[in-house]
Structures are given as C-alpha cells and as structure tokens.
C-alpha cells in the first residue's frame, strides 16, 4: 500500500528582505535596499507517512517544522520537489477561523466548519456531536462575543476535531482550555488515531509527542536529523542536544 503522505526532495526558500520598501518612492530610489537574502528553510527533505500513523515533528525554533506543515496543507508551495497527500487534509493550525463575534455559537459552527470544506449536510450531521464535545449546550445560542476565551477555544477545537479528515495536521494548539478539556482533546485525538486517522503533530511539548506519536521526526536547519519509531530515544537525544547547546550558549557569554 502506498503511503498517505509522500514528501520527495522538497526544498523551500524564503525571501528575507533586509529592508523592504513597499512604496513606489522607496522602490525606485532605494533599489539596492530591496536586496534580499534567500534563506533556505527546508533543504531537500524526504519522508513518508503511512495511513493511521501519528508522527511528531520536533526541533528548535526556525528549523522548518511549521513550514513543513504549511506545505502539507497546501498553504504554501515548495520550490522544488513533490508533495503528495491522499485524501482530505484538515489542519489545526488556526482555531476559530471566520468566527463572527456577533453571531451565535451555533451559527459560527456552520461558518467555521464550512471553511474546513464541509458541506451543509455534513455539518448538520455533526452538529450535535460538536456541541456536546464543546460542553457549551447552555450557551450555544448566545453570541460568541459573550464567551470567555476558554469557551471560545473549546468551541473552535470541537469543530476542528469533527471534520473527519483522513490526515490531521496540528501545530501547537493542544493548549486548549483547562486541563480537563485538554485531556479530553488528547483522548479524542488518540481515539481518532486508533480508528485510522493519520496525524502530523508539531509541538515543543515533548510529553504530548511521546504520548500520541508512534514516530518522531527531528528537523535541524531544514534537514531531517532523525526519523525513528523509537520516540523515546529520539526525544532523549534531542533533549541532550538542547542541553549541550544551552551550556554552550551560556559558556560563550
């Protein structure tokens, strides 16, 4: 069986403008200032993910984790290489997209879910499950502006988790609501994963990577440093590496 995600020799560069003049005057007068450095964010990476796998992407800031996720979700496109994802992709990169503060929770479920590409019928089928999961039954017809930030996030997460995609991409958003709700989200993700959902998770919280993922992918300066099923082993090595870096930085000072 072919893998559900196939990333082949993908490279991505960003243009970093040293001083991006955006007005016409600046563009004409200071052409030289518009020089930009091309920064390589991803350098020829390849990996595959099998259906039903949960993969954790780890690495320090700026190593290309989030860019990888954005490429997988087609928010950005690579300069080189190929990315193939089979089936419906849903990304939990931004929660509560399109929420209108003056509209009720119920109306916002429809708007938000439609942004994930659900049809009206699909949303209606999931409506009760979404409301139940969010624990907002008593407030669902109140305008969202009256919600606390925790309630807001609970509603947003409930929608996102009920999209029933084939691949779910998650970027650092498990810090939702109180610890009980966090635990509930986590259990839900585990359950979905057991039922065949493929997950790619970006997180600095190594505990949740260890808890949820069957494989860890360590990115370092746009390249894959480690790609292994022994999640504990990768995390240990990563922590050791970070410790060394920290000591080195302190030593330099």
């Amino acid at each position, binding site marked *: 069986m072919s893998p559900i995600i196939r990333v082949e020799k993908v490279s991505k560069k*960003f*243009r970093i403008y040293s001083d991006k003049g*955006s*007005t*016409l005057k600046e563009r004409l007068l200071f052409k030289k200032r518009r020089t930009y450095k091309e920064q390589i964010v991803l350098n020829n990476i390849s990996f595959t993910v099998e259906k039903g796998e949960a993969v954790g992407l780890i690495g320090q800031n700026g190593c290309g984790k989030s860019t990888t996720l*954005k490429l997988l*979700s*087609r*928010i*950005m*496109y690579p300069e080189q290489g190929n990315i193939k994802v089979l089936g419906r*992709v849903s*990304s939990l*990169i*931004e929660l509560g*997209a*399109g929420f*209108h503060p*003056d*509209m009720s929770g119920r109306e916002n479920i*429809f*708007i938000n879910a*439609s*942004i*994930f*590409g*659900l*049809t*009206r019928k699909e*949303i209606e089928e999931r409506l009760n499950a979404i409301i139940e999961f969010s624990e907002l039954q008593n407030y669902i017809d109140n305008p969202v502006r009256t919600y606390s930030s925790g309630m807001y996030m609970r509603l947003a997460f409930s929608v996102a988790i009920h999209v029933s995609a084939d691949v779910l991409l998650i970027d650092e958003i498990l810090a939702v609501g109180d610890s009980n709700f966090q635990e509930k989200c986590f259990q839900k993700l585990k359950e979905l994963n057991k039922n065949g959902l493929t997950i790619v998770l970006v997180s600095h919280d190594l505990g949740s990577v260890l808890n949820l993922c069957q494989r860890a992918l360590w990115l370092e300066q746009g390249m894959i440093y480690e790609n292994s099923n022994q999640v504990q082993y990768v995390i240990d090595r990563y922590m050791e590496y970070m410790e060394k870096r920290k000591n080195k930085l302190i030593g330099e000072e």
Partner: protein
Amino acid sequence: MKIWYELYRYREMIFSLVRRDLKGRYKGSALGFLWTFLNPLLQLLIYTFVFSIVMRNDVKDYYLFLFVALVPWIFFSSCVAGGASCIWSQKEMVKKIYFPREVLPISFVLSQFVNMCLCFLVIFGVLIFSGRGIDLIAILYLPVVLVVEFLLALGITMITSACTVYFRDLEYILSIITMGWQFLTPVMYSVEIVPKKIQFIFYTNPMTSIIEAYRDILYIGKIPRLSSLGIAFLIGSFLFLFGTMVFEKLQMRFAEEL
C-alpha cells in the same frame, strides 16, 4: 480544471461567507436586515427630492433614470474598488488555513450581487407604485444583463484582489479609477448628450452597454440592444477566464507575501 471541483466542494464556505456578510452587516442595529431595503429606499427619496425639486432637468422622472443605473454601478464599483482588499483583509485566515483562495473574491462579489438584487426589489416596488409599471417582456432580459455584469465584476475582482496582495497601492489607485470610470459610463446622463468626438470612449467601455441595458429594461421598458450586450458578454467572459488564470498563478505565494 481541478479548481472547479475544489470550489464545488467548498461551496458551503462561499455561501456561509456571503450569509455572514449580509447578516453581519446590520447586526446589532435595531432594524437589522430591514436596512438592506431601507437604505436604497431612503437614497431614492433623497434623489427624488434633489432632482425633482432642487435641480430640475428635462429628463422625465430623472430620479428613476438615475437610480436604475446607479444601483448596478454601485455593485460594479464596490467590487472593483472594495474587492481589491478582500484577500488582504483576510490575511490571518489565508496564512493559516487551506481553502481554495478563489472563495474569497467569489463570495465578496456574490454578497455585493445579492445586495444589488435586493435593491432591485425596491426598484420594482417604486416602478409599480409610481404608476410607470414594468414591461413584462423586457424584464425577461434582466437576468441576462445581471449575469453579464456579474462575470465582468468577478473577473476584475479576481485580478485586482490577487494583485493587491503584492502591491498594496493598487487599492487606492482603483478607488480613483472607479470614480473616473463612473463619469465615462452613462450613469448620470445618457450617451446622447456626450459630445460626438468622445463618444467612442463610452462605447469601448463594457459598462456602457450594461448600464444602458438596465435603463432600457427598467426605465424605458424595452428590450435592450443585444449586439452591444453581446460584446460586453464576450469581454466579461474573457476577463473572467483571464482572471482565474492570473489568480491561480499569483495565489501560490499569497501566504508568504501577506
């Protein structure tokens, strides 16, 4: 043509953005959705006052002559000028979520379009109550004109909204262009009173035949000239196809440029 299939799958997003815009526009006001009708009606009252009492002229029922052209013009100009920022203003969403980017200009134009159609209901009401009546055969041509104008507006909005992501000044340039464009379109006067020498400018402008068609149907009550409308349709379809192609190319780097 994968994009059409993708847009079909995201049809609910288009509808719910249109609904959010139309419902959200007057949310919180006491009269709510009623404003959609009240607003054009009150405008019409003002025009009637100005052009029947203050600034009289020879055109019979000038307020209607003006209003049946002004409503479709406002639709067009708000698409061209306002639609330019429809991707920029949603940049948080564009940077963080995947959806076919075409959804944004389409739903923007569609929501303006629905608004215009609601204004037409007001116009119908005024035509009936003022005793001018509606020509039942001519009115059958109204959907054709609506489609032609929709295509033209959508094509232009696709191009301008995508270009504005890369070049922000375009939005301000366009608001001036649409102002000038209005005076090169027979909205406030008919083409006949324009000096012969510069009439050709009016006839190279696709909006001229569209606005004239509206006026033929609603104000005069006759079937519009289909030949000039046909040319407007060709220009509209061309701009629409060209717009989708340009858009598809430019949208690849949206997330990085915003």
